[in-house]
């Protein structure tokens, strides 16, 4: 048992260490881009966003993609994960930053 305890302590220490550096795309905070599946009715879309306390900021032209404002404190990756797991959602992604030249 002592061995197991030591291993758990080491595990806790390892988890607290920083993850390895990773390519980090930058994106706009507080918003995500979301597209519902075409068969999802508008009321269902609104209800889902209400439940998540998200609001539609704008529709991106005729693409059907919504720019959605997140509730205060909700991180973009969390929002993307939550929305992407919903069967009504075709895709959700951060509003990535883009570079010229």
């Amino acid at each position: 048992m002592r061995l197991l305890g030591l291993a758990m302590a080491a595990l806790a220490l390892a988890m607290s260490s920083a993850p390895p550096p990773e390519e980090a795309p930058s994106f706009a905070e507080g918003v995500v881009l979301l597209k519902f599946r075409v068969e999802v009715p508008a009321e269902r879309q609104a209800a889902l966003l209400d439940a998540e306390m998200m609001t539609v900021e704008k529709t991106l032209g005729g693409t059907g993609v919504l720019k959605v404002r997140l509730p205060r404190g909700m991180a973009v990756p969390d929002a993307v994960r939550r929305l992407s797991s919903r069967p009504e959602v075709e895709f959700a992604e951060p509003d990535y930053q883009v570079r010229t030249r």
Partner: protein
Amino acid sequence: MTRWLRIPLLTISFLLVLLLAAGPLPAASREVPPPDQVLVKYRAGATEGERARARGNGRLKKRIRLLGVECLRPGGGETVAQAVARLSRDPAVEYAEPDYRVVRCGIPRQATDDPRFTSQWYLDSEPILTTIGGTAQYLFDVDMDAPEGWALLSRAYAETTRVVGVLDSGLGAAGVFSAAAGGYLPNLEDAPRSVLWSNPGETANGLDDDGNALVDDLNGWDFYQGDNAPADEPDDGHGTAVAGLVGAATANGLGMASPGYPLSGGGSRIRLLPLRWWSSISEITEGIAYATEMKQGGAPIVALNGSFAIAPQGLESLTLKEAIRSAGVEDILFVASAGNYDGPTGDFPQADNDLKPLYPASYSTTMPHVLAVAAVNSGAALANFSHYGERSVQLAGPGQAVLSLGPLDGQYENWDGTSFSSPLAAGVAALVMGQAPALAPSTAIRRLTQGGVFQKSYLGRLKSARRLNLAGALSPFYPYSGLAYLGSAIPLRLYDDPLSASFGAAVTGSSRQPEVAVFKDTGSGYAVSPVAPGLATFALSFPDSTAGISTLKTGPWRVTALAPFWGRLAQGDTITLGVHPSCAGTLTSDAPGMAAVGSSPWTLTALRAGATAESVVHLILTRGGVVVEESGPFYIAGEPTPDGGGGGGGGCFIATAAFGGEGVEEVRTLRAFRDRVLLASAGGRALVGLYYRVSPPIADWLRGHAAARAAVRAALQPVVFSIRHPLAALLLLLSLLAGFVLLFQRRARTN
């Protein structure tokens, strides 16, 4: 042939070329002034005293060291003809000839009076003398042949105006841009012939007249600030420069020129629609959607220029993809910069987009309306910063030291980047698409690529191995230039699109280098028929043309005796080479340590790569001590190249399907692990290759089964955890093992 014979013969050939060139010149071409200088070649061993005596009163202007030739301006009342006669009699002189004024192959050219035009090497510049096998023999243009293309436009083609949407940082600094004044933009040079497109459905009245939810969108829109003045920042200027290269007012006596030569009655052939964004996908998407919807409403928008890339390389936005796809449905061509290399730790670290895609440029492989454009410099070489891709980048255009507008009135700067090659392609595409409203973007792309100028150094780097050429894109014949193996003719075909309709079917061709290739009428068509290795250009004549164009240029055609002329080999590979019997001699490799050549049969064996992962080898074919040709590039990879589908940056199919999108953090983690760890080793690459072969159908099935997706997500979570926290995962595994061992021991004791 001895050296003594070769030089006079070359001179005679050169004179013949000039005589041929001078023949079919139309009345509209410029007057060619008579020569006022003399070229003198002294005999080997002529002393400086003998040379000084021969010069007489003539003034030495320059020396061409390569050839041992001096250029003299006659003095003391001596004419050029008298000086040539006197020098030709001089025992120290091998030959003397007038410094003839060179006319560009007798091809019609349209003049322009823009004062900055002389600094725009990429539109028009003097030909460069190049050498093959150590012999100077060919004058080639690095420019886009803009005046030759404009001549076609003004004589042969329809007078139409087309709109190009410029997705960028805006147009002209604030205060300079004034939408309310009808698109007057001083640094776009010419208010009466404004190059801005005006939305006919909108008036400046504070109302949304055309019902598109934007108020007073007269000349584009700022999707960052949400207003109708898409102005550039004074310290940025990227968008202004890009817009200038698409369609700055031309032939107006002001500033610079662009592909957009004006209509005969005034007014620009290319109108600009500035769609300003500042930093994010959503703004760009709105711009694309705006142009798409305006086109649905009847606006003559033919192309969008996207001089941007999503960072880091490999990241894809489904929103942007959706928007670009929707523009394609409306037949809008999307021109994208191939990308700029910014070092191994930068955002765009893999210059080969085939190995790691860069979006949106890499949509060129999946969407027929997307054109990816690399950059070349003023020597026609790929710019050292330019991304490329044999499968994913179709074309290159001028993109280094390219003069264009600055954001302030009257400001001009030289710009570097693939950002500046793509707008030139967009401008040319707009001219092509302006000829026939129904011309699909894919047809325009075909015209731009087939109409480009072939260069062997682009082989393996660009899909077309060609660079942008305005005259070539508008030429009724294709291909405009290319690679011809000795012994097989290359057919020259008339496009079957409406642009070619005004040119007569009867064509005659004269080769500028008949010793290299000749023009053939095969009875059923026309062909370039190779004679000997080298470079050749042709003048095509249209005796029954209704287009008013009598002569067109085509070429250069590189004739080669070696097949394949270039290729891609992995370490250890051996390929068999065909050498045309008329040229069989000695074949050597310019890097014998990396690639060895064998004879009977001719072979090339890749021994190893050089200092870089992929090294370049050329083969030199000599006969009787004379270089017949230099072939290549042959790319040698140090290890077998990974399966194309397994290249970095693409989608992780199963994970993407299970987690619902590429933007999900877990997917990014898995993808980064693949790119950094798996693709770094041969075993890992093989594993990735296998995964990419088997995973797409599994991913397709998963998309339709929610429960299975949840199960895969749960199964992948420990993998993701292990990648993020490798030490913790190892300790957890050890702990579990230790737990099992303890449990097993206790049970064993109990028993």
